[in-house]
């Protein structure tokens, strides 16, 4: 049935699909982390993913990025299997921890994806921006030769974002990337991420545990429920872009946030 819906949607001229999950389930032994997840991720959109702990937010990103196999169902990215998409570098991942190699400078960390993967048959696509231009884009020009321990937590995360963009991915998977940062830094990086999204047109799946962050960034909020992890609701956030920090003080913003909080409490 769901496949019929997709075909129909495509036929009626809906935007192309970046990632598609059909009745996908993930199991760890007898534990069901995700059950029957069906979802089409629109190309070019910004999705935030919200849900109580144990709802499989991170698992969902790991399923899409071919880190964990689906027990049942299907996952495809731009019509390819997740493995094919991985080998084509269709997606990139930004972790909660910047995960930089501490012996490499900022620019060498950004270059890492260009050096790895050929042996496994990856044809490495190159971004139209060079690694140093990408560091510029994330606001780190002049810090190319700094080692990770010489950078603040926010700067390290920006290096990680530049590294994710170096192969010009069409889908960016972000797993609570700003969760460990202080609020000021987080606001700043939220703005920067929106700018990058608008400049590059990349599709973003962004896991967060912050309701304001989910509303501020996303066009759509995927609300997941726990035990087992499943899709509860897709909430549209009809606030116009470009969004400014002061948007958070508007009644529309508060209304969305309150609605999500209510949903979250009943998840």
């Amino acid at each position, binding site marked *: 049935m769901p496949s019929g819906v997709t075909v129909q949607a495509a036929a009626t001229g809906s935007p192309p699909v970046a990632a598609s999950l059909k009745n996908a389930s993930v199991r760890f032994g007898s534990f069901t982390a995700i059950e029957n997840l069906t979802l089409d991720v629109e190309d070019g959109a910004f999705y935030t993913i919200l849900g109580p702990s144990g709802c499989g937010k991170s698992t969902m990103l790991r399923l899409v990025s071919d*880190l964990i196999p689906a027990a049942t169902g299907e996952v495809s990215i731009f019509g390819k299997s997740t493995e094919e998409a991985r080998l084509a570098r269709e997606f990139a991942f930004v972790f909660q921890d910047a*995960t930089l190699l501490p*012996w490499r400078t900022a620019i060498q960390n950004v270059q890492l994806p260009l*050096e*790895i993967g050929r042996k496994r048959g990856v044809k490495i696509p190159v971004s139209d921006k060079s690694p140093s231009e990408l560091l510029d884009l994330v606001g780190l020009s002049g810090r190319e030769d700094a080692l990770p321990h010489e950078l603040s937590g926010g700067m390290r995360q920006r290096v990680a974002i530049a590294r994710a963009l170096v192969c010009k991915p069409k889908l960016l998977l972000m797993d609570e990337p700003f969760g460990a940062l202080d609020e000021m830094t987080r606001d700043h990086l939220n703005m920067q991420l929106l700018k990058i999204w608008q400049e590059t047109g990349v599709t973003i799946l962004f896991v967060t545990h912050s309701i304001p962050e989910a509303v501020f960034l996303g066009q759509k909020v995927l609300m997941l429920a726990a035990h087992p992890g499943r899709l509860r609701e897709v909430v549209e956030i009809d606030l116009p872009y470009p969004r400014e920090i002061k948007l958070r003080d508007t009644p529309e913003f508060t209304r969305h946030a309150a609605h999500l909080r209510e949903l979250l409490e009943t998840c």
Partner: protein
Amino acid sequence: MTMVDKANPGSVETDESKLQALEEERRFERRRKFEAVAIPITTVIGLLIIWQVGVRLFEVPTYIAPAPSEVADKLVTEFPILLANFWPTLFEAALGFVTGNVAAVLIAIAFVHSKTVEKAFFPIAVFINTIPILAIAPILALIFGLGMTTKVVIAALICFFPTLVNMVRGLQSVSPQTMELARILSASKSEIFWKIRLPSSLPFLFSALKIAATTCVIGAIVGEWIGADLGLGALILESMYNYRSPMLYATVFMSSGLSVLLFAIVSIAERSIIRWHT
């Protein structure tokens, strides 16, 4: 400068007080550095004086405990002999250091890549490590004879285990997220090894090498005790049997100097290779 001074004498004052504060800070810093060196040196000199006076005061015979002045005298007058015995021990210790650590690193790599190899050989490695080095030395002497090989093997053996354990830990110290990153980048096993695992292990390796830098000297000296006519170990035994205690002390001093030398070389190498903090 003078123009500004004339125009605004107030700023001169603040400049001067700033300079004064800076000067004060510098003086404080200099004092702290001076104290860090001066206090331990004073303590050592004090202990040496107590030793010297004590030995003379209680008329301790030289063969039981020599005065520091006698030891210093031997260090100067017998320096050529000490040096002639220093080189063989340095050579054995250094060769043992290289052999033992290379073997440990290679086996650690094998362990990390194959659980079967680890299961098969790790208990043996632990067992060999539990045998006291002094107890295994005669066995090695029977196998390798009384030449240099025995000393090198003992020195290698004593370095081996700490490096093996540390290197295995170092190679496994890659965070799960970094491994996920490698998987998303479709990294091959060799790419993961050369670009991620090996550099991650270097801080662990160097802390093991610093241990090995001092223990390999112990290994070489123990080897010389089993049977040798040259080397610091041989000189220690010879001095002891002949009650030449100033010479014995001077030799021990040289042995400690050898450990310090090897330790310093490893530390310098570490500082030039590992510029990052984790």
